[in-house]
Structure formats: C-alpha cells, structure tokens
C-alpha cells in the first residue's frame, strides 16, 4: 500500500484517494461496533428464549422476533463491511484472461450496475420503511419501520463503500486486489491464529 502511495504522489487524484481511504476505513471502524453489539444481542436473545422456555418454563414470546430482526440488521450492515473488504467474490477466472486495462475498465463500469441496484434498494427501501410505519410487529409491538429501515440504511452504506472502493480501484495495479479480499487465504490464517510463515513449508519453498 505505502509504496503505491509514493508512486501516486503528485497525481491530481491523490486527494481523492486519500478521502476515499479515510471514509472507507472510518466507516468500517464505525460499523464494526454496532455489528458486534447486534451479533452478541442476537446470540443472547435466543439463549434467553431457550432459558425461559425450557428452564423456567415460562416462554418469553418476543425473543424469536427480536433475534430475527437483529440478525437482519447485523447481516445487512455487514454486507457494507464486506464490500469495503472485498469479501463478496465472483467468478474471476474469465475476466483475468483479458488484458489488464480492459478488465479494469469492465469491472469499473459494471460497478455502476451495482450502484444502480443499491440506489433502487435505498430509494424504494425508504418508501417501504415509511409505509411500514403504521404496521406493528406481532410480538414486540414496535413499528415495523425500525426493522424495515435495515434495507435502505444498508443500501446507502453499501453505496458509500462501493464508491470508495471504486475510487481506490482506479489506482490498484493488480486485478486480484480489485477482485478479492486483500488476501483471503492470509486472512483465514490470521484469524485462525495459525500463521506459520517461518515453518517448514515456507522453508522448503525457498530452496
């Protein structure tokens, strides 16, 4: 990343790239907090339901609905996180066969279709949520608006994340960087805490 920034110095887009990076990273940090809270809430709610039904023998009734809506918020907010982290992957084997510049252009332009999809999702999603204002959820007795809002809010966040990603894609040299999460495999290993970079396998490779 850093070396790339060096080579881009002086480019008129430099400011734009910095901005996209700041917004994307900032939004990611910001989103992780509610996503974490929602995922813990979802788990705790279902367990609470189990506890009350089977241990205390007095079912709560609202836990199923609450956990379901919390799950939707959690998952849809995560969709935006995954756009920024390139975790939504497609089939990359064909596009990679094309000349790099052609492939980059096609990917860039195809993203406008996704932007349009997200725009429809946001626009009609807000209308749907407004329309659901008077609807009352069956168990929680809350307005459906708060749950339906997950769709347009997520769509707007996705829009922002995708625009940031598309901006940064402009300066990315390697197609893999555009198409896949920074390094899916590395991420898997880091998260599992199983990095064995200096192990025997690597050693053999260098010989």
């Amino acid at each position, binding site marked *: 990343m850093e070396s790339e920034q060096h080579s881009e110095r002086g480019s008129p887009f430099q400011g734009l790239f910095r901005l996209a990076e700041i917004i994307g990273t900032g939004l990611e940090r910001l989103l*992780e907090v509610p*996503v*974490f809270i929602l*995922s*813990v809430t*979802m*788990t705790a709610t*279902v*367990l609470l339901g*189990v506890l009350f039904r*089977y241990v205390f023998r007095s079912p709560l009734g609202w836990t199923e609905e609450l*956990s*379901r809506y919390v*799950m*939707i918020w*959690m*998952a*849809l*907010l*995560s*969709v935006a*996180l*995954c756009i920024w982290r390139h*975790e*939504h*992957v*497609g*089939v990359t084997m*064909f*596009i*990679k066969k094309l000349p790099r510049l052609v492939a980059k252009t096609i*990917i860039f332009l*195809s993203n406008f*279709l*996704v932007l*349009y*999809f997200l725009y*429809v*999702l946001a626009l*009609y*999603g807000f*209308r*749907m949520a407004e329309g659901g204002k008077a609807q009352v959820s069956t168990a929680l007795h809350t307005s459906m608006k708060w749950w*339906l809002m*997950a769709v*347009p809010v997520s*769509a707007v966040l996705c829009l922002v994340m995708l625009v940031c990603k598309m901006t940064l894609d402009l300066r990315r040299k390697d197609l893999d960087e555009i*198409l896949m999460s920074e*390094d*899916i*495999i*590395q991420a*898997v*290993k880091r998260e*599992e805490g*199983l990095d064995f970079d200096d192990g*025997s*396998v690597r050693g*053999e*490779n260098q010989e």
Partner: protein
Amino acid sequence: MTAFIAGTFVVLILIGMPVGFVLGVTGLLSMLRMGLESVLQLVPQRYFAGVDMFTLMAMPFFILAGEIMNKTGITTRLVKFSNVLVGHLQGGLAQANILASVFFAGITGAAVSDTAAIGSMLIPAMVEEGYDKDFSAAVTASSSIIGPTIPPSNIMVIYGAFMQVSIAGLFLAGVLPGLLIAAVLMFMTARISKKRGYPVGERRATLKEILVAFKDSLVALLMPVIILGGILSGVFTPTEAAAVAVAYSMFVGFFVFKSLSVKDLWPIFLKMARTTGVVFLVISAASILGWVLTMEQIPEKVAALMLSISTNKWIVMSMILVLLLFVGMFMDIAAALIILGPILHPLAVDIGFHPLHFGIIMVLALNIALMTPPVGACLFVACGISRLTIEQLSREIFPFIIMVVIALLIVTFVPGISLFLPRLMGMAP
C-alpha cells in the same frame, strides 16, 4: 425474456461481478425489461423477506460455535485422537487427516474452516514426515467436504429453510453419506500411500492411549450429539440447538480448557457477521431474481425441458447431477442452492425422489465443487497453506475427486444410505 435473464446472468458472472450482486442486478434489469416499473417496490421487500427467517439463524450460530471451538485448541486434540486410531497404518498421517475431518465435521458446518484448521496443522506435519506436499494438501482439501455433509451443516440449513424440508431430517440423512465419503477417500489414500511408499506409523497405539485421547477430545465429540439430540428429541428447534452449541463452545473455551479470552470474542463475532453478510446478500438478492423466475415460469419450463428428453427417473437424475456438478464448478454454493433448488427440488420429488434424499444429493453434488478447480474454495485455502499453485494441486486432487463423485453416485442410486437413519427415527416413510 428467458434469454434476456439467462444472458444478463451469464455475462455478469463472466465479468467477475460478486455473485450476490449478479443475482440482484439480473433481477432488477429483468423487472425493468418486463416493463414493470411499478414492481420496483418489490425489490426491497423481497430483499428483506429473503432473510426474514428464524431458521436461517442456525447458520450464523453454527459458524460461531465452530469458530469458538476451533479457538479453544480442540483441533489439536481431534488430530491426536485420529492419529492414535489410524496412525499405525501405511500413510497413517494422511488417514488421520481424513478421520480428523470426520470428527471436526461435528463442530463445524462449513468446509473451508475444516481445510484451514486441519490443513495448517497437518500439512506441515505430513511434509515433515516425508509426504509430498501436493498430496498432503490434496488429502486436506478433499476430506474437508465431509464437514458440511456430517451435521451440523450450513448449507443444509439454507436448503431446509428454502425447500421446506426438515433440517433435522437432512442432518440425520447426511451422516452415513459423510462416512461413505470418508471411507472412499481413505481407500484411495491407502492405495496411493502403498504405491509411493509413504511412511508407516511407528506402532499401534495401546488401548490406554486411545482412551486418553478419546477423553481429551470428548468435549468436541459431544457437540454434534447435543445438537442432533436436542433437535431430534423435539427439545430444540435447529436454531435453538445452534445457539446452545454456541453457549456450549463458550463454556468449553472459558471454563474447561480456559484457552479462550473475552478479547477473542471481538474478531470471532465480527468474522461470523461478515460471513453471514456475504451469504445473506446472496440469499436476499436471489429472492429478487426468484420472483422474476417464478413470474416467467422458468422452473416449469426447465422441468418440461428435462422431462421432454426423458421421463425415466434415473436418466433425469443423471442430467440433474451433471447440471449440479457443472454449475457448482463456477458458482457459489449458496447461490446455486437458492437458484436451482426451487427448480430442481419439485422436479426431483415429482419423479419419485424422497425430499430428504434429493436434499442430500444436491448438498453433496454442490459440495464437490469446493474441491474442484478452477474456483473450489477448499482448494484455494489448501493452496494458501501449502503455498502451492492451483495447477500443482489440481493434478494431485484429481483421483480424490473421482472417488467423491463415485460416492455421490452411490448415494444417488442407493437411497437407503441417506434414508436409513431418518427412517430409523421415524422421519421418513
């Protein structure tokens, strides 16, 4: 119109657009093409309704339980246990790799986590003992597909939720096919080991050693028992059982092994949320496209087309298998399941297949895609761990793919393998 839908879909897939967005954009463009501006309000509605299912929540919970269990260091114990059981055979460590996947399958619902956890431990160990690196990686990647075949299984959750099939029934039906896959893989491993003279383990473990290793891994072996037992006895719904599995894994991590810290939960929960996000985008977007397909009566058209070629049950099923294996090679499993499920499931039931049986066939066939080039996810992870290229690994994994396809054929043409356990529990006629 059908041509427009198919054309848009294929082009978007070919240019590498993320599968979830391909489904959404294709659905949206088809709606516009049908001149139905007024139905655009359906887009967010379907998007929301697509994932508004309590049953689906079992999936994030199984991911969570698997991640937490893995973090507690249970994998080491499972590998040790497998090793005392089969380590003395020729190619013992490779056999232990496969057996460990069987045990690991009981705590994870996804194949990729199996590849990552077992592979990063056993591939280096196997290479050190004198196995070829590409063989070690191939064994790891191919045995990973046992993970989503033996319960719990994320794709069975999705299948059950969308096709209205009992998830408990699918879980039960998956056990024997999962063991069958393990058996055919072990057979091939034994043959290759003998031919290449892979090391023979030192000696047979004593009964005492086996018991000690069994005791060490008992907490992990209990997890599928809790999940299946809870669901089958009617105590829990699948989602509740999955949540209990999360609580159980946390209990094990915090109090039994004391290897889990509160700090670990942040990355684990976030990873679960992101994995869920990726799959839920696919499901949500697929239900938009699903609406279009239903409007255009595509499922009926495909069924009619297939039945016009032959009405013989087995010929139609063979066509379905070819289709599934082909589509699986290029498409994400969840997407293939949600798009093809509503088309193929009614057709299969119509020609006389039991819903549980066909569920297992579909899950198995799409699972094989995890280990086939060019885009098999387990292949990618195994390559990452062993630092091989896909090409290097592809050659070595080929015999294993053949074996698994044979297992798929056996499972397809011998319904009893899938249906024996569900029948035993009175879940199938």
